[in-house]
């Protein structure tokens, strides 16, 4: 079999990115949408680490920053979700219409 190169990792990362994007665009549950965003961020991390094998350690340092951002994003997103659930008793994205008239 062929040697596993950077291209293989890029294809896996692209597949995870696409799966995450489909989850964001098609699901109704806000929790699943937040998990899909985590999948997208992980795909980006895999790209960064795969390229850091070629061009030095900068990619790995950036992937640590991406993980810190993901932690902040999920904390704020879940806080918004709890506040919304307290008001409307639902976790569905298409029922979030408090700002519509």
């Amino acid at each position, binding site marked *: 079999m062929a040697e596993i190169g950077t291209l293989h990792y890029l294809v896996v990362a692209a597949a995870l990115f696409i799966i995450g994007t489909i989850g964001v665009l098609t699901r109704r*549950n806000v929790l699943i949408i937040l998990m899909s965003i985590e999948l997208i961020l992980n795909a980006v991390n895999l790209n960064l680490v795969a390229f850091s094998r070629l061009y030095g350690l900068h990619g*790995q340092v950036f992937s640590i920053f991406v993980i810190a951002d993901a932690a902040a994003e999920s904390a704020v997103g879940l806080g918004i979700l709890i506040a919304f659930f307290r008001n409307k008793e639902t976790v569905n994205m298409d029922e979030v219409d408090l700002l519509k008239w």
Partner: protein
Amino acid sequence: MNPVATTFFFYFLSAIAIICAILVITRRNPVHSALLLIITLLAQAGLYLMLYAPFVAGVQILVYAGGIMVLYLFVIMLVNIERAQLEERFNKQWVVGALATGALGGLLLFIFVKGRSIFPATAHMFPEQVNTQQIGLMLYRDYLLPFEIASLLLLVAIVGAVVMAKKRI
């Protein structure tokens, strides 16, 4: 020491990651989705180890699979999932969304296959023993300002999460 069975482990871990990711976005129960997402994250940590990034793999397991996913599971327990299990899983525009995203995936694959020659064939072999040390040096020397900004971002996120989840301030 030369790595053993790289090809097998790459395809094994990638298959686990992708299959569990597909299950994450199709399961009805959010608890199952969260547990499958943990398996995906652990498989990705294995892929990081194969890319000679042991520190990132450790951070992935500790912070992602250990910290963030516990937060998700707590919130799933707080909200009412019995009602969500009876409802429609996908929204009305799911066909359009899936088609557009599939087109984007086809475009990415096309670009990767056409441009495969721009990636260098032989990768550098970074020594694994000093990986953590070098990342620490880079974080505190070259990336000191982004590091401080990240800490400030985490502080703002903590305060924001408490403010938004609190009943009355």
